[in-house]
């Protein structure tokens, strides 16, 4: 079950301040990295919410991110819809997409779930890829951005946009944390721990899983919506399966079922990507290798390991205190 421990708070705050500082002190390139980290962290938070606390390891979160980008991008670029309205549509649309995938797959466990989510993600990709109205393979340019000039924020400024993305990441974390601390979230953990018993106690497991998928989908969609605003251009690349893999790497590397871990994982992975990117453009190979090593090495992940060690130390301390 999820508890907002002080380790989590410290860790998320540290990453947030680090990103803000880097964006403010660094130049344009630094801000691009900050945006990349913030958006990947949002996507990974969405995935960890579902996979770490609900036991549903989805391989279509990359596609949901892309669906969010497309709903926002297509409505602003094609019909000139107000960006706020478009953002709302993107979040609602991805929640609906998540809910449907969740409802369809709720009866099947483990491996079937993985295969089915991979397939439905690919379905979204194929639909976008083949749709002429959405620009097909070429994608769409002319995607809008939020207008925050009323409060004195100019999002065409790279620093201010980067700060918006960091705010988005923080908000995503808080939404996920709040939901996980609620009865809804505890119940989700209950399903993860023992689905049959929850049903025997009177829970409609299927509805609950679908709803959880919808919440997770909305967070992933919000990240995609910000990504579309960032590049102001959308293409089927936003929905490609490798992004789901990248999100999974972030979650496993950071620590699945820790919520704060994905934030750390995203910062680490993007930094690593730019470091390795200086030597080779075969980044995907490293993603795959990291995923394999992270899965083979064990389950806790970086943040999970830190949390585990710290809590064990505090336990031994209290025990020592009692004996003394």
């Amino acid at each position, binding site marked *: 079950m999820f508890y907002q421990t002080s380790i989590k708070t410290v860790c998320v705050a540290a990453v947030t301040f680090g990103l803000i500082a880097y964006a403010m002190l660094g130049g344009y390139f630094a801000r691009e990295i900050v945006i990349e980290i913030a958006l990947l962290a949002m996507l990974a938070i969405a995935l960890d919410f579902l996979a770490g606390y609900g036991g549903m*390891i989805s*391989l279509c979160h990359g596609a949901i991110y892309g669906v969010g980008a497309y709903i926002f991008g297509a409505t602003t670029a094609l019909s000139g819809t107000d960006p706020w309205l478009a953002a709302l549509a993107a979040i609602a649309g991805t929640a609906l997409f998540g809910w449907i995938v969740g409802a*369809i*797959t709720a*009866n*099947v466990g*483990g*491996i*079937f779930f*993985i*295969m*089915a989510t*991979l*397939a*439905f993600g*690919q*379905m979204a990709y*194929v*639909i976008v890829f*083949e749709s002429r109205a959405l620009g097909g393979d070429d994608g769409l340019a002319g995607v809008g951005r939020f207008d925050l000039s009323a409060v004195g924020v100019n999002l065409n400024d790279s620093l201010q946009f980067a700060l918006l993305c960091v705010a988005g990441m923080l908000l995503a974390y808080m939404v996920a944390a709040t939901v996980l601390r609620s009865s809804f979230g505890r119940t989700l953990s209950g399903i993860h721990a023992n689905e049959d018993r929850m049903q025997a106690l009177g829970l409609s497991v299927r509805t609950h899983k679908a709803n959880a998928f919808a919440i997770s989908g909305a967070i992933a969609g919000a990240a995609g919506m910000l990504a579309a605003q960032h590049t102001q251009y959308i293409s089927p690349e936003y929905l490609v*399966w*490798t992004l789901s*893999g990248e999100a*999974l*790497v972030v979650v*496993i590397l950071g620590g699945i079922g820790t919520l704060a871990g994905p934030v750390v994982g995203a910062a680490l992975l993007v930094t690593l990507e730019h470091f390795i990117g200086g030597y080779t453009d*075969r980044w*995907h*190979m490293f*993603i*795959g*290798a*990291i*995923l*394999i090593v992270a*899965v*083979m090495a064990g389950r806790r992940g970086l943040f999970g390991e830190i949390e585990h060690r710290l809590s064990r130390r505090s336990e031994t301390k209290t025990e020592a205190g009692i004996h003394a």
Partner: protein
Amino acid sequence: MSGTEFWATQFLNGLQLSMLLFLLSVGLTIIFGLMHFVNLAHGALYMLGAYIGVSIAMWTDNYWAAFFGAPIGVTIIGIALYTGVIKRMRKEGPMSQVLVTFGLIFVIVDLVRIVWGSIALGIPTPEILQGQVSIFGISYPAYRMFIIALGLAVMAGLSLMLARTSYGAMLRASVENGEMASAMGIDVEKLLFSVFCVGCALAGLAGVVAAPVFSATPAMATDILIPTLIVVVIGGLGSLTGAIVGSLIVGFIQTFGAVLLPSFSSILVYILLAGTLIIRPEGLVPARK
């Protein structure tokens, strides 16, 4: 081309796609039946089959060398993956194994890009299979006919082996009840290894026979993986009959969907998948009752 001829051609196209899907799904499904794990890198092995075939055909200038060499090459790679990665993950459970194979797709696809580049590479059709054959009163490319025949031959061979040989009996027993089978002295580990090898060989075979028709591209790893996964889910994981039924359904729906409902064709199989998961999540022909 008259109406009948058109439909006859489509029928054969559907059959040809079904056979490719069958060659891929049969390995996946039986491995699942034995160890409840799905090798998501199976599509990547198919891709490797195509590329290895391309290289062998280039060196030897002989299609048949590629035809026999590619499955062997893929099997060797498969054995390396199995012993190096998958087997070590046995204790961690099927879920971790699946995630590891997902990571393998990334690695293999990028390695292929490094070794063979990103452009499509083809294999010339062997001379003996160039031209057309006449069947049902229509003329149809001989090479595609060869794929159909090959698929049917593998199907018949595997069915006979499962039904008639003691190896087949052990396999069926282990899928039905693994614990019981090992208690009765069947070496499930050895069985598993041999099935994994056969699965890799068939994936490599599918890749090399597909190469003259579709060319080898890095995208083929995931392009074929999704329909193959849909085949095994629809058919029922772990069942040979399920793989046959599923391949035929998916192959024909994709082929005829493209003709009859062009604007929906690409999502028809996904609708089928969704329907199966809701109505009959155990698949049409489940391995266990």
